């Protein structure tokens, strides 16, 4: 007897099932994928398993995702800004908060900050930010004085929602927000800034969230972010 052994469809059927279940080693999975690409009948074996095994999800109860998921997907795909006043649902990085346009401006700013505009090196002594709501309903001006180790925050317009307070946050890069304290109901506030935080100020983002009286109970923002602004050198 010579020649090839008879084609063993059972072996391929089992392999397709193992592939569909994710039981193959990465090497074997890659080999199987290559065969699927070449051979329609192997593709059909896989498709049959995928259909059968997908029935295992039939008795999993449906669950509506949170309303903010779709805007996040759209922001990921199309760069659209997430809905304003979105509550912090855990920290998910910079782009989610500030939206595409501001993130791009910030990236540019960071690039500029790391070289071109600051040929002597070192952090600028003075930096400032306009912390503003998208609709202009809340505007604060912040000025950072590195030598004095102090951030001055002046309210231009807007107030906290009834029964709530405004809390100021510093967000540097992908770091979690750091609370800079609860702002007084009106007027200006002076926030002492230590050297550690001071180093994160240039290029960072200042954001204001609304929180229960006394400020966030968790150490992270819990209410809606009302306003934000990038800190740029003066």
């Amino acid at each position, binding site marked *: 007897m010579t020649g090839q052994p008879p084609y063993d469809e059972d072996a391929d059927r089992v392999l397709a099932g193992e592939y569909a279940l*994710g039981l193959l080693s990465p090497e074997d999975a890659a080999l199987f994928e290559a065969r699927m690409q070449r051979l329609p009948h192997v*593709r059909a074996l896989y498709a049959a398993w995928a*259909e059968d095994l997908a*029935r295992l999800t*039939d008795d999993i109860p*449906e669950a509506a995702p949170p309303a903010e998921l779709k805007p996040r*997907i759209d922001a990921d*795909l199309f760069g659209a800004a997430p809905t304003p006043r979105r509550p912090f649902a855990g920290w998910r990085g910079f782009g989610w908060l500030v939206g595409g346009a501001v993130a791009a401006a910030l990236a540019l700013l960071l690039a500029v900050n790391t070289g071109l505009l600051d040929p002597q090196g070192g952090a600028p002594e003075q930096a400032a930010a306009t912390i503003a709501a998208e609709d202009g309903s809340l505007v604060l001006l912040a000025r950072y004085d590195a030598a004095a180790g102090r951030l001055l925050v002046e309210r231009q317009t807007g107030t906290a929602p009834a029964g709530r307070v405004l809390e100021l946050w510093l967000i540097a890069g992908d770091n979690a927000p750091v609370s800079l304290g609860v702002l007084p109901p009106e007027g200006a506030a002076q926030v002492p800034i230590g050297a550690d935080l001071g180093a994160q100020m240039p290029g960072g983002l200042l954001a204001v969230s609304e929180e229960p009286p006394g400020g966030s109970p968790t150490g992270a923002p819990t209410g809606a972010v009302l306003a934000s602004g990038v800190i740029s050198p003066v």
Partner: protein
Amino acid sequence: MTHDDLEQLIARTAMGERSAFGDLYAGTSAKLFGICLRVLDDRAEAEEVAQEVYVKIWRHADRYRVNGLSPMTWLITIARNTAIDRLRRRREAQPGLDVAETLADPAPGPEAMAVQGGERAHLAACLGELNANRAEAVRRAYLLGETYADLAARFDVPLNTMRTWLRRSLLQLKECLTR
């Protein structure tokens, strides 16, 4: 949403039509998010994975026909595979994590049984023809991403024995499903 509705929405999504993508999301996100929740048993992670799933759906909608899957199976498979990838990464990061608690009772309750169509009953019946441990191994591989090594440890058999078991079970299952 019917098979044809889904195919149309996927085709339009592949053309870059955002409104079709929105309709596809509206019609399928509860199902796919349910799968992510079940696999991961963690709401925050399930949200992140569901986000990843729909980003993949948008980006790969033009590849939907490549494997010849029905539209719902294609979507379910993307959700399941993405969730399993995440679960496996989590397990690698936390060796020794016992996932037994994350598996809900695999037997559907009477209500679920009542609403299931013929296909599901067929699969359930065929799984029922297998030895209970072997059916459980297939479920665990699919719904929890357990590997041969995980399964061998769980059922306390040598790795090669586990492989042989599962391969035989697959053939037996297929024989029943195509009967």
